[in-house]
């Protein structure tokens, strides 16, 4: 049985516990990803926003065939396996020591995701400017 800092208890039925894994994923997706003051977004919201921007990133890649965008896009989504490996494989530890383990998402998923968001914002704004210019001249 695992007891967390906040007093919640998980029952282990075997070495590998699927109920615990689902509970852990639910818990870890609910932690704060980014916050300013008391306002913040959780990791599930962050992943949701990133999914939308990823579609845009793929569109930008198809438009200009910049390999750097494709590489960053694929790497970002592959890198989500790294934190998931710790949360799922070391479920006893990630279930009990949530105080420090909640930041496992940053290694390196959030960091790559932030770079991807930056790339999409920069390239997207350039694209919008180009379309506006074309409308003016056309």
């Amino acid at each position, binding site marked *: 049985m695992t007891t967390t800092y906040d007093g919640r208890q998980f029952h282990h039925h075997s070495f590998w516990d699927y109920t615990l894994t689902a509970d852990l994923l639910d818990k870890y997706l609910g932690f704060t990803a980014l916050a300013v003051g008391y306002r913040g977004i959780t990791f599930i919201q962050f992943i949701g926003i990133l999914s939308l921007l990823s579609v845009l990133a793929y569109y930008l890649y198809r438009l200009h065939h910049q390999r750097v965008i494709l590489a960053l896009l694929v790497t970002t989504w592959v890198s989500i396996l790294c934190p998931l490996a710790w949360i799922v494989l070391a479920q006893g530890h990630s279930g009990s020591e949530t*105080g420090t383990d909640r930041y496992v998402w940053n290694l390196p998923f959030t*960091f790559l995701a932030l770079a991807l968001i930056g790339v999409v914002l920069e390239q997207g704004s350039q694209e919008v400017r180009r379309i506006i210019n074309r409308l003016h001249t056309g």
Partner: protein
Amino acid sequence: MVFTSFCAVGLWHTGVQMGNLAFKYSGEGKIFGRLVESRAHGVFSQAGLLGWVIEPGDMRSFSQMPFGQRMHEIKIGEFQARKLYMEVTGKYRYEAYQSQTGLQAVIYYYLDKIYHDPLILRVSCVSFLAIVLVCWLNFVWCSFGIWPAFVSALGILSSPFLSETGDNVAHVVGAHYLVLVVMFWAYHKRIARLAAVAFSVVLLKLLLNGPEFLFDVLLLPFVSLVYYAILRQMPWSKIRHDACQLAIGVIAASVVAFSVVALQIIIVTQSLQAPFAHFVERSSSEHL
């Protein structure tokens, strides 16, 4: 400027904590216990393992307690460690923590000799993390441009990890990110000996802060491989070759790191079976 803001945000939490004279109980007692022991009996006494300082009459073992009770007792133990650390006197019993080498405590010991203030430990920890993060931002700037680097800097500054765990002297958080930065740098510079780079950096991480985030860190070198394989359109033979090199480096680093810990446990307990018993027990336990 970015470095200073990372340090400031990282230390902001410390300022709050120092004001309350409270220590974080997520593992810091081990470090202060080790510093008390290092001062009394030398930096490599008890094979250099981290540990808790307990009153001599108290025969309870922290590592054998149930988790909830253990955390409560460790909090008390940490206050005791702090008291001993400040007073530099007192008799105690030392209980070694057998899950990591404790290289960070060796570095802290020499810093502590110069300054004798727990704040320098926190400042060194946060500065190390800030340097590593600035290197990451430099990589993002060089690879994707200034705006992605700006968004990354804002994102990192607004993530609570910087202030909540950045100054934790037990989890030297910078060591995790060092693996990420060094592996991307090695690919960026087209370094041929990837196995040696992966071995060195993963070994350094395992010696500095133990098996925390182990599975995550072991996969990190392969993330850089995925990025550069797509960017440079590497042929399959090259990808296979690099993946084998990285796997050899990472596995060798883990084997060496765990062997060092096993050797330390053998020296402390004088028993050849003790490390195996410890690793088996901890691998199925909720704490490392």
